[in-house]
């Protein structure tokens, strides 16, 4: 048994690791990509709605506001949650978890794990916005009368969702236990990292 990993799987000869190597680093990288892309995703128009030749570009936020103005409050809440709140919560939440893992911040094992899985679960729901756009662009296409097109932010937004999902995927959840262990030891051997626990 190797501390760092390198067991052979008896059936498939695949490498087995105690902890996936560089998992935290990769998770960070994917998360950073998402954090960068969230800017164009929100600043560029995500939809181009044209009625009678009158083009109206909408960013995610302005689209939500339009919905509020039109009085469609429940839909606005859903769109806001799926398109703005969730990606941001995801990025912030993951940052916090990764950070806490790296810095051995004290946090209940259970709470951290639950939080991580919640974020992982909620992440896919952000794709709903793109799904709506793709349906709308088909339904609203009435030639010269009206058209509904996906804006340049769509790609960025999709990548944000994708990157956060990948980020949470590559993150080796076992590190969460290590963090807990470490934080307990940390009380006694402050400043020292211990990664050699099974």
């Amino acid at each position: 048994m190797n501390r760092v990993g390198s067991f052979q799987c008896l059936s498939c000869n695949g490498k087995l690791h105690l902890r996936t190597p560089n998992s935290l680093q990769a998770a960070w990288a994917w998360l950073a990509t998402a954090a960068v892309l969230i800017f164009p995703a929100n600043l560029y128009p995500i939809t181009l709605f044209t009625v009678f030749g009158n083009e109206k570009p909408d960013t995610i936020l302005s689209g939500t506001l339009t919905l509020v103005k039109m009085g469609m409050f429940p839909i606005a809440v859903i769109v806001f949650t799926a398109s703005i709140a969730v990606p941001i919560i995801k990025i912030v939440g993951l940052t916090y978890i990764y950070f806490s893992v790296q810095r051995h911040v004290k946090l209940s094992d259970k709470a951290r794990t639950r939080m991580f899985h919640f974020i992982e679960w909620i992440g896919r729901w952000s794709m709903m916005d793109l799904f709506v756009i793709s349906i709308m662009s088909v339904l609203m296409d009435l030639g010269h009368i009206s058209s509904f097109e996906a804006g340049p932010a769509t790609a960025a937004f999709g990548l944000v969702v994708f990157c956060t999902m990948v980020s949470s995927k590559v993150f080796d959840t076992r590190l969460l236990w290590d963090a807990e262990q470490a934080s307990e030891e940390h009380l006694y051997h402050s400043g020292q990292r211990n990664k050699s626990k099974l």
Partner: protein
Amino acid sequence: MEHPKPVIQKESKLSGVWLLPVIALVLATWLLYKGYRDSGIPIKVFFPDAHGIIANKTKVKFRGMEVGRVSKLSLLNDGSGVYVHVEMAKETAPYLTDALKFWLVKPRAGVGGISGLETLVSGAYIQVDAPFQPTGKEARLFDGLLSPPATEIPEVFVTHRLVSDAAKSISPGVGVYYRKLLVGEVHDVRLDEDLQGVEIIFALEPQYKDLVKEDSRFWNVSGVRANMGMDGILVETDSVTSMVLGGIAFNSPKSSAVANENSVFPLYESLEMARTAIEVDLTIPATEQVRVGTKIFFHEYEAGKITQLNWSKNFKTLVGKARLNQQVEPLLRKGTKFWIQKAAVDLSSIDLSKLIQGTTIQIKPGQGEYTNRFQVATMPPEIQFEGPDLDLFLITKERQGLNVGTPIVYRGQTIGKVESIRFETKARQFKIHVVVEESYQELISDASIFYNMSSVKLKVDFDGIAASIPQPKQILTGAIGLYSNSNGEQKTGKPVKDGHTYSLFEDYDAATSVYPETSFQIHLNSASFASPTVGAPLLYHQFQVGKVKKVSLKKDASGTEIQVIVFPEYQQLLKTSSTFWLASGVDVEASLKGLKISTGSIKSVLVGGIAFETPSHGKFLKKPKTSFTLFESKDKAMAKVPQFQLTLKRNSSLSNGASVQYRGQKIGEVIDSTWTPDFQSRILSVWVEPSYLKKVARSNTQFILMRPEISLRGVQNPGALITGDFLSVEVGKGAEKFFFDVIDDPRDIRPEANAFWITLVADDLGSLKVGSPLLYRKIRIGEVKSYYLAPTANHVEIIVNVELRYRSLVKDTSKFWNASGLRVEASLFNGLKIDSESVETIVGGGIAIATPEEGNVVQAGHEYSLYKIKSDSWDNWRPHLKEKHALSTE
């Protein structure tokens, strides 16, 4: 035991995944930079009124392409206008100079059309116009216009100039029309250099540039021009667009050369002015009724009109100006005469325009140098015999609807016309100058007779009108006829020269008196005193072939004697056998085809007439004045003496007048019917047209009562439904016979003598009726003619008539079966079998026949038994007829 050497792995090497955020960062940065780079050039456009401009929405377009977008609106400090902040596309940078023009495009609906319609839905936008090449100083602040600026004319357009004394609702943008087609546009209207007139510059669209010729004439089609005068009101407008917005129209002669670019043309006030471009000065005697607007004619052609009238200095004459059409320019020579033609109030003339136009001025061309000053005379110039045409004079005391231009007619052909009419005060008569066309000169001799054909002369007499109505056109214009007798002959005489004078006869009759007619006359004796008037027509099938000449009482006062003239060309219509009667003019005939009312000519309805018919027999009349009897009516003339006495036992609607038909054609009618003393039957007196009498009056002839019969098989004798029952004749042979019994039951009809018939013996009649078909392979080859109970009453005998051409199909071996109704057989193995000969036989009954190959032809009357059901083996009989028995195609 040696421990294995620990493998030391570097713990935290940088993961390759970090490339991802780097790439994302680079991309985001680039996007940000691009966003900044493309953010556009901010400019400000000043608009006094920014109505319809919305920030972030209103676009700036150049030739329909979006080149910028309004980003913000801000009010000027003093509130005098609005700054519209526009973000122009980066590429427009070199063009942002002070040569740019911005204006607001809004939907504009005017009478001239609707523009900017797209902005109704898309909202207003700002249009920018830039020169092809960037010119001028760079600018970021512009003045916006509220309406489109005048456009520069692109070089491909050809421009011309028009000069006019006033702009008269011509403004830039107004259309230039060629034959009502928009071919150009007025580009600019400005005062000319000396400020005395207006110069209009217009551009033609490139494809129409050749339309303007050197001799083109332009006129203003703006607005509505109303001209009121004795002539009535003349309202002139062009298209509604040009009426409201103004417009310029032009016309170009075909032959003229294409005008050079930038040519100058005068702009006339109206089409009329453009057309009448020649101005002449006229001196007019003050006594005459000449006004501004008095028309000038060259013959019948309107050549122009007087446009100005002023007193001369000594107040003795009027000095006027007239505008004349271009076409009469060659006439304006020194020798040309102008004279005043006064309006002739003449009821005979229905030419309203002549009456309305009043006094006119006429031109008579002369020789000499060109001039434009003329003296107008009060009288036409003396007649000079010019040209190759023949000039003649006619003298008459009554003018009677004759006018200048009245045609001279010879047998319907116009051969000349009246040139002028003068009243000779001394002789108190009219002298009519007529011109006969050169090609008809040979018709005129010194023996020629002219008469007035005008219908205006109202003789209150039906006949009179009829005699003097020549042709519809001549009713309107009047005419002078050159007399010829009804054979078209003319008296021969010597040819005449110009200036020969004739006297004009009052009418045709007057001319006839000079030139007696050798007409063909007949005499009619009438027992009645209701005779036609003199002049009433003699009609042959409503066509007039003569007329009543004289009506006189017979010497013994027992009636009237009528002399009738038959026009020579119709003489052969009369024979010794002709029958004459007084024509009532209205004839009513009712039949299944509808009601037909035929009337004779209106004249014959009004004045009556004499009609006649001529049978084919008889001899032609050799000498005139043959006497005939005139019957009171056609019926009496055609009086029918019944030849037959028929006894009718059955009740029937058969009445007097019922027709007697032979195969659908009427050959006679029932004249009278009376009851026998015992009231059991009626005796009909029947008349048959003499030509058929010999054939009909035979002992074997049958008269059959035809009555309408509606049954499932259809309607029989539908004609009888409307006209009532009638009699049908089956012509037979035998000795002469005139007394018959009417056959009222179709069963009693004997087969025709030469018909082929057979007798079928059956147990019962079934659903067979008279007329039920005899079918061979479902083709009808005959029908049931009659049936009756056998004398022993144990069977029924059915007489079937077989069409002669199918006779050879009936042999002594033939089998007959009753094909009536529908036979349904159901069996376990064969299923359902429905058999019927035809739809007709299902309800109407019928008989079918099958014939084997062998067998002999039978004689008429052969007896067969009629089977109820056919045997299946009969189906396979397919006799092949030998040639000599083959079906005739008749």
